[in-house]
């Protein structure tokens, strides 16, 4: 295995975060703080407890999931798309690195950044609410699996995209609505039928539910179902990435 190759890609991608620190870290922290002020304090003060916990605390897993998903996707998609856009991808294609090594480098870096961001959001949340985590290890498992899975998804998106519009259209028009409609800021019990049933077709619901269980031991679907769904999604993405590299789709002519 080309360990130096993996490390080179990983370090390069992490260094990109340092150059864009405001965009990568500061902006999400400010946005999250605003969510807490608006939803947690202003609106939350008028909402009764949800599932036995305060509304401010209830939205923490949803906010973490929102940031994990959007930043995993954007980091990984931009990481592979930009070399394609400027032409430096020739170097990766001509280097002695396998598909797995390329994925470990790019996706590993994107997932690392998302996890770091998730922890920062968690710390930020602790300034606004009395944070309690019932199952910290399971919380980390959910955060890690979500970051990895959606970084893989972002990587696929970056390979598929051939312009900046395509790069942003999926996160904006698909992922963000799914997160908002996936019970991030409410319990699906609060929805009337048929929306309650329809919500169960939203994959993000399973992620948010699983993460919320690790915090407060309340969930809308079973924890095992949440774990299974995220693992299935991760392996499906891995399969697609393997196929893309094997065929050279949009990379090798």
């Amino acid at each position: 295995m080309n360990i130096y190759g993996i490390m080179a890609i990983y370090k390069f991608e992490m260094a990109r975060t340092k150059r864009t620190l405001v965009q990568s870290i500061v902006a999400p922290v400010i946005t999250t703080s605003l969510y807490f002020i608006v939803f947690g304090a202003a609106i939350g003060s008028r909402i009764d407890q949800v599932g036995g916990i305060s509304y401010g605390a209830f939205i923490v897993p949803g906010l973490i999931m929102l940031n994990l998903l959007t930043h995993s996707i954007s980091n990984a998609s931009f990481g592979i798309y930009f070399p394609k856009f400027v032409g430096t991808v020739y170097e990766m294609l001509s280097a002695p690195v396998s598909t797995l090594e390329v994925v470990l480098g790019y996706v590993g870096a994107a997932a690392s950044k998302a996890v770091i961001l998730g922890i920062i959001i968690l710390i930020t949340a602790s300034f606004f609410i009395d944070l309690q985590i019932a199952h910290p290890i399971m919380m980390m498992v959910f955060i890690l699996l979500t970051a990895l899975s959606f970084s893989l998804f972002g990587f696929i998106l970056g390979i598929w995209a051939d312009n900046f519009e395509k790069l942003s259209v999926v996160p904006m028009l698909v992922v963000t609505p799914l997160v908002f409609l996936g019970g991030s800021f409410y319990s699906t019990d609060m929805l009337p039928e048929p929306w309650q049933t329809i919500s169960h077709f939203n994959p993000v619901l399973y992620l948010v539910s699983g993460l919320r269980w690790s915090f407060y031991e309340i969930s809308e679907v079973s924890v095992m179902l949440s774990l299974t769904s995220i693992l299935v999604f991760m392996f499906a993405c891995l399969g697609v990435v393997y196929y893309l590299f094997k065929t050279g789709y949009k990379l090798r002519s």
Partner: protein
Amino acid sequence: MNSDEKPILRINGLNKFYSGGFQALKDINLEIEKGEIVALLGPNGAGKTTLISVICGIVNPSSGTVHVDGYDIIKDFRKTRSIIGLVPQELTTDSFETVFNTVSFSRGLFGKPPSAAYVEKVLRSLSLWDKKDNMIMTLSGGMKRRVLIAKALSHEPTVLFLDEPTAGVDVSLRKDMWAIVRELKAEGVTIILTTHYIEEAEEIADRVGVINNGEIILMEDKDKLMAKLGKKQLILDLRDQLSAVPQGLVDYNLELREDGMQLVYTFNTQGDRTGITSLMDDLKLAGIAFRDLNTTQSSLEEIFVNLVEESS
């Protein structure tokens, strides 16, 4: 499998079809020896870059085999790619990276452990050391070209592909590049370059290949090629003006130039006889005197143009 006697690059029956059916490479067969400098000449779209891209792993071949140092580029891609360096035609760089970091990145990507000392050596050899902390976006086009060479050399390759290395660079930098190429050859690196500049091939290549319409129409030792295909001309500056070539000299196919003040005789250096001695005798018999004479040899450019026109 690999040994010193075997060619460093062996291509057999290589074809490349792009989607849509366009055939960019047609049954390419080629062998390149260790330590050679080979120049690939060809007009735009001839297939030069596609050929290099296939060997380096950027483009998938449709059929045929390519072996580098005895290793197959598909099955043993790690081995072949780790000994190949590529300098692309376009100035594609990470604008926001520093020179030192981007060269170090390339070294790692190609599986070499970090070595600040080696990166320093490469940067110094390319006069880039004083720019090591500069962001690439602040460099001139010529400096960026050097950075690309440094990146390609960062993992100590034994085969280096230069895709039009001096395209768009000034004469001074071009000569610097040639010096770098000669130094690399002295270190045992095999160099394959594509170029539009015939003088570049003439200046530094050991062998010259001509590609047109995806086919290698010629691969020949440069000096032999020039001797074999190069026409030589004897130019006589006449003392008195001639209105026409005298009847007794018609067999020599002489050309009258400069308003009848110059006679040009074209001959083949590879022939048993050049015919110069008998021409001189016949000129004397015809009473034609000349003030000066000189010979010229056709350049590689003329040879190249003729070959491409013939194959087209």
